[in-house]
């Protein structure tokens, strides 16, 4: 497929955006329409370690997971659900394994759809296996295996295809722990986007061929890594201001999947997706207070503001007093969705959205910038520079800084001195960057070829 860069916003203003509804809804699976006016729980899960030994053991484990989850959905009267299977390595490295799992899951989902009319769809997120032990190996044999995994899973029942692609991560990893703004921007905005262009044209073709949905990506490998290193309020490993700058840049990157043919729903752990929804109008999955099983963040409510699917990110399958983990978490998600859907049906979606967003707005600089009103502004900065993936990344970072500064000025966003200093440094770094993509790439190529031993330029076409 060709690449069509976004240069305009899908939404005329931020206020038009809310949960459960997107400009361009997506039909998928068994009776579902995503982003069509109702929010849907998206359950994620991980098989227990010991079941990884064989295809059979894995299939059985996923069957249990699927049956447990569908049962609970019916027991509480939830109308719809999406299941997301994030491949464990074995399932992508051996495409027939992943396909067997997809088939087993879909068979059970079809049973439930037929018996009860539960609307449902199955997302398979193929592992980005394109690496050797020490180096990324984005193009070549591993890429072929990965694409085969996409194809076979689509054939065997996966309705939504996703990946958390890793392009640019080698440079990013080096830079993020050194407060190196240029490296972060290069890793995410330039290298990452280049890889997305490559990967998603292929996935979109496969999806089209198999009549399933090319759903979308997330900058988990980079922006989420920054968010995790930044951690909670008292962690001392990375300024949260730095993390949100990385996040804004990642919006410019993940957007490229939709420019290469993906249609959404974008993946749950892409906290950049509110920004992207504003630009591209695609439905998105999000995670927050319902994904504490998987990680902690400082914006558990806010992420719900514009979600179409509401996810728990991942939980290991095991027993709890209330049932198995997948049952517990899908139930919590389903109630959150029920609340959103009630708001939608009674015309109260905007007030609920505003309450959700406001409750986290001042908790942390990350939430402040991702608040849908500010996220929209970041989107505008990206769209205004849409054609140039470097410039739009830089614009996203600059807009992020501007938003933070105005929050500080207004007085309610109170940052630590440390966060403010990090912000100042980033602002200076951004000012020092060239205005031309070519020049920036040249500078970075020189620097990172020298400094980052695992960086192999042949992974990218710039």
């Amino acid at each position, binding site marked *: 497929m060709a690449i069509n860069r976004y240069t305009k916003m899908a939404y005329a203003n931020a206020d038009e955006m809310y949960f459960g509804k997107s400009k361009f809804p997506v039909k998928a699976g068994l009776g579902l329409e995503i982003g069509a006016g109702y929010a849907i729980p998206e359950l994620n899960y991980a098989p227990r370690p010991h079941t990884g030994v064989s295809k059979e053991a894995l299939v059985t484990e996923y069957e249990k997971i699927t049956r447990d989850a569908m049962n609970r959905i019916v027991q509480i009267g*939830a109308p719809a659900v999406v299941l997301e299977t994030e491949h464990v390595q074995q399932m992508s490295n051996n495409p027939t394994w992943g396909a067997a799992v997809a088939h087993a899951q879909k068979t059970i989902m079809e049973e439930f759809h037929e018996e009860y009319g539960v609307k449902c769809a199955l997302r398979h997120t193929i592992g980005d296996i394109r690496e050797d032990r020490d180096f990324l190996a984005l193009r070549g044999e591993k890429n072929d295996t990965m694409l085969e995994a996409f194809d076979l899973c689509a054939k065997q029942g996966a309705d939504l295809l996703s990946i958390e692609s890793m392009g640019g991560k080698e440079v990013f990893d080096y830079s993020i722990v050194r407060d190196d703004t240029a490296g972060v921007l290069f890793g995410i905005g330039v290298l990452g986007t280049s890889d997305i262009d490559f990967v998603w044209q292929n996935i979109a073709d496969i999806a089209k061929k198999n009549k399933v949905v090319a759903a979308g990506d997330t900058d988990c490998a980079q922006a989420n890594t920054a968010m995790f290193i930044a951690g909670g309020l008292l962690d001392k490993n990375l300024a949260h201001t730095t993390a949100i700058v990385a996040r804004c840049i990642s919006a410019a990157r993940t957007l490229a999947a939709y420019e290469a043919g993906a249609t959404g729903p974008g993946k749950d752990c892409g906290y950049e997706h509110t920004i992207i929804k504003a630009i591209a109008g695609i439905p998105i999955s999000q995670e927050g207070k319902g994904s504490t099983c998987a990680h902690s963040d400082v914006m558990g409510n806010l992420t719900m503001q514009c979600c179409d699917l509401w996810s728990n990110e991942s939980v290991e399958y095991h027993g709890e007093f209330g049932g198995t983990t997948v049952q517990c978490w899908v139930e919590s998600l389903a109630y959150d969705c029920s609340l959103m859907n009630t708001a*939608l049906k009674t015309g109260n979606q905007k007030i609920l959205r505003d309450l959700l967003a406001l409750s986290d707005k001042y908790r942390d600089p990350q939430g402040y910038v991702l608040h849908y009103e500010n996220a929209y502004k970041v989107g505008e900065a990206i769209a205004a520079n849409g054609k140039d993936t470097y410039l739009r990344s830089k614009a996203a970072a600059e807009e992020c800084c501007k938003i933070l500064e105005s929050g500080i000025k207004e007085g309610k966003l109170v940052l630590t001195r440390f966060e403010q200093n990090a912000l100042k440094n980033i602002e200076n770094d951004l000012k020092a960057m060239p205005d031309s993509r070519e020049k920036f790439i040249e500078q970075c190529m020189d620097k990172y070829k020298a400094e980052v031993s695992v960086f192999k330029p042949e992974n990218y076409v710039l």
Partner: protein
Amino acid sequence: MLDFKKEDLDTILIRYNVLMEKTMTPDEAAEQLYPKDPLLKAVAEAIYEGEEDDVIDALDELLDAGKDPIKLIDEALLPGMAVVSALYDQGIIFLPNVMMSADAMLEGIEYCKTKTTEIPKAKGTVVCHVAEGDVHDIGKNIVAALLRADGFEVVDLGRDVPVDEVVEAVATHKPAILTGTALMTTTMYAFKEVNDKLVEKGLNVPFACGGGAVNQEFVETYSLGVYGDQAADAVSIANFVLKNGSNMDTLRKEFDVY
């Protein structure tokens, strides 16, 4: 008052139970299962209704017609109860009906016994208990009731039963199966102890375990364990053992949840 239109409801919630309810009423469904013989049917109907007095009256008619009181247990009371159990298994009637029917049937059995000096032979014995340290006994009570309803002699040891007492009861009663219920993660380990002592004493009786805390994986860590999810599974397990013996492999295979 905030509310929405009825037609908006189905994006919020779906009452699958209403959707799924069988079109047949329980009474209609029962009607199809009753024995043809009018006298036997009267017993079955009385059991279905849970009316103890009617059961006695219907039995009296059969006794008056010269039927053997002991045979009536197998030929009138248990088949009558089987109608109820079948309806429960099909999801047409609910547990309280089964409990009340079982009470009525047991009353009928007692009544028959008063009419003879013979001692009726139950189809088999089952020992039931709740794990040591655990007082949650509702699940066990349901299990016991359903077993009785199916014609088993139940030795109900109650709740919070010391391991040795369980083992002794098995030694004494030589049941077809032993059942255990545990609702707490802290108490279910007693099952392992029971199992090991049973094995030690050569009492290789299948040990059906269930209850909130328990799962198949855990139960299959001890040699005699077979897991049951629903109370009715205890009945199926007991019947299966009566028919097919107590080979643990076939038993586990038959009752694999997944």
